[in-house]
């Protein structure tokens, strides 16, 4: 082997290794910048004020509880919609649908995953809001519920694809054994296949919820943007404001280094921590499963 070939080999290996480590570097950088811009909040805003229920930045009220509450409310609503529908669809695609129906259904769900959230938000304002206002007889259609409906739609593809993978990974022999013992296909699904895929289905739900809580544009456009502390599920039919929407709506108007700027980054830290917790938990389950690719690409 001549020396120029060796050098090329060395340089390329080095570049590839650096690319390999880049993901770690980026996560660290993101965390570092959120902390460096957001942590001064704890110095400049008293904790009691930060943990209050009043968000009114113009007069220096930085209570983030209504925003956290808004995110929880909207996400909870989305979960109530997306979890049963997503898992039902996944079961249908994985266990019941004939092959040809599968080949139509899967790309359709992928289309939903690819729809930009602004497009959904746009339809949410133009169509869904006026429909909800008339149908439910409420003063405005721009409510947490409207946000929940859209977020449900956004979370469904995640839930369907992960849950379907989990169901697909259940060995054929489990089903055959149940059917041979005289169980119907329906009993097999409920008592054998679904329990066997339990951890993967749980991961699907977690990732779907994570997707919903982090969604920004659609929520900002349709929830009416009122930072009010939710007190119950009835608040679904009133305007609300999520953490993500607050950052998106207000960051453009604040000056760098102001207290408001710091607090918005602080909310970013909270969101980062939530997604970290969800994904670390979910990945603990995913690591034990077979590689997705071995099934998809074969």
């Amino acid at each position, binding site marked *: 082997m001549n020396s120029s070939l060796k050098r090329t080999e060395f340089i390329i290996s080095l570049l590839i290794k650096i690319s390999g480590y880049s993901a770690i570097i980026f996560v660290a950088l993101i965390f570092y910048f*959120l902390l460096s811009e957001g942590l001064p909040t704890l110095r400049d805003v008293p904790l009691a004020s930060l943990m209050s229920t009043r968000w009114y930045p113009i007069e220096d009220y930085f209570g983030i509880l209504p925003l956290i509450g808004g995110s929880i409310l909207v996400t909870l609503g989305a979960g109530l919609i997306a979890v049963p529908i997503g898992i039902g669809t996944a079961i249908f695609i994985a266990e019941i649908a004939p092959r040809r129906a599968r080949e139509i259904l899967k790309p359709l769900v992928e289309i939903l995953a690819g729809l930009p959230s602004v497009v959904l938000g746009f*339809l949410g304002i133009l169509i869904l809001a006026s429909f909800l206002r008339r149908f439910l007889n409420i003063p405005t259609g721009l409510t947490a519920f409207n946000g929940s409906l859209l977020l449900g739609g956004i979370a469904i593809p995640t839930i369907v694809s992960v849950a379907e993978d989990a169901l697909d990974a259940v060995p054929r022999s489990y089903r055959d054994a149940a059917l041979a013992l005289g169980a119907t296909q329906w009993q097999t699904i409920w008592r054998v296949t679904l329990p066997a895929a339990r951890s993967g289905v749980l991961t699907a739900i977690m990732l779907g919820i994570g997707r919903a809580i982090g969604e920004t544009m659609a929520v900002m456009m349709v929830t009416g943007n009122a930072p009010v502390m939710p007190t119950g599920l009835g608040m679904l039919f009133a305007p609300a404001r999520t953490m993500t929407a607050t950052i998106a709506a207000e960051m453009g108007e604040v000056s760098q280094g102001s207290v408001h700027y710091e607090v918005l980054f602080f909310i970013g830290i909270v969101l980062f921590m939530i997604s970290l917790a969800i*994904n670390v938990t979910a990945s603990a389950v995913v690591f034990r499963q077979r590689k997705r690719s071995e099934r998809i*690409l074969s």
Partner: protein
Amino acid sequence: MRPAQLSSYRHLIQRLGFGMLTGITLITVIPIVVVVLYIFIQGVPAISLEFLTGFPRQGMRAGGILPAIVGTFLLTLGTAVFAVPLGIGAGIYLSEYATEGRLTRLIRLAIINLAGIPSVVYGLFGLGLFVLFLNFGTSILAASLTLSIMTLPVIISTAEESLRAVPQSFRVVSISLGATRWQTIRRIVLPEALPGILTGVILGLERAAGETAPILFTGAAFFLPRLPQSPFDATMALPYHLFVISTQVPGMPAQIQYGTALVLLVFVLGMNLLATVIRSRARARRQW
């Protein structure tokens, strides 16, 4: 109950259950079809040469959306420039170089986390690092870099999956013929994995093209009277423009809104279709 009764009872339950699941699936699928068709039907009348090649006029209530189309194209291109080499490189590392150990586990965990971080948090990060710290300003460069980090996990995972799907024997034969590791990767493994990698790249870029939150404070402009001249200029973009004309501009004609939504949808779904075609053609041609 006699066995015959039990059996028919169980089959009734099964019929009801299957009916319910079919219904649920229709609830998922029908709105998708309706949304896409509805935007096509409402948007098509807005499409004209002027709409696609003109600048917005009268406070964006008339004219075209050329700067937004060009902007989204440039942002997607910029994202590809950074994310594609880095993502494929990382995929090669994970598939061909890495040994299973603590470091590799940490890399995988980092990738999973990158995939889960909310898009608006990417926006904050881009603002903090690229716009302010590195002083790129609100620019195509800063927005592309932000979008490319967001796109990275999709490209890395699909690249790794496609590379791993290439049979080990291909590598063994190549190495035994005297090829170096890199020669083997470049001449044997990469070409075989290319369709899969390409699919992942396109799906990643599709997501980047439709995103608004990461570019809100890193590169998107409300209105610009001319096309961007350099990577350090801000730019209009289709998703942000749709956001602006559906929430910030009162008295906006619905036709222009639907037209903009349609162009964005065609852009995104076109990429989606391309990825699907590449994937199914590669699968049909595969010999191993």
